[in-house]
């Protein structure tokens, strides 16, 4: 999929662990892992909003588009 999720980059910048982020966003660590590993098929706006709030960033910081 040409959409790349850069959560791990933002997590490293904010020095936040996966467990802490999952807890703040309100998703399971397993689902966060699916997002981090680019296996997700879709992201809900509510999840994206919670991620942006927890990581203090914009959606563009989390999502990127690369040509296949």
């Amino acid at each position, binding site marked *: 999929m040409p959409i790349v999720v850069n959560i791990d980059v933002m997590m490293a910048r904010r020095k936040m662990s996966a467990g802490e982020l999952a807890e703040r966003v309100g998703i399971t660590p397993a689902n966060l892992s*699916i*997002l981090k590993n680019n296996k*997700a*098929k*879709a992201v809900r706006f509510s999840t994206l909003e919670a991620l942006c709030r927890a990581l203090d960033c914009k959606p563009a910081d989390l999502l990127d588009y690369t040509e296949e």
Partner: protein
Amino acid sequence: MDWNRDKSVKLSKFCVLLFAALLAAVCLFAPELFRLLIRLRLWDQQVLLPLFLASTYTVAVPAAAALYGLWRLLKNISGGAVFVAENVAYLRLLSWCCIAAGLVCLASALYYMPFLLLSAAAAFVGLMLRVVKNAFAEAVNIKNENDYTI
């Protein structure tokens, strides 16, 4: 799993076992059954008996495969795995088994016309199963997309 659903799957499994027993009995007693039919209808036993037996034993192969597919399908459903790729494969197998049985019956209609009805029925069931298989395949895609929506 609630009471009704559990019982329903158990009933389906029982029916599959019943049909398997019936198929085994037909295979075992086919010569006697067809000899009796031929004697009652006053047909030529030398010509028709081998043809009837050939048709029966040829149809028994896809029938057994279909019963195996049904059993595996019911086992997956009772285990909670409904919309999975494996079940789509079993539905495809069931569909092809029906179509194969229909083709054998169509060929058998050359010496016994009523087989034409069986052929049409088997082909129609095969077609219906194919449509159900298509719907199942789409449901598996939707489920996968839903499972991976975070």
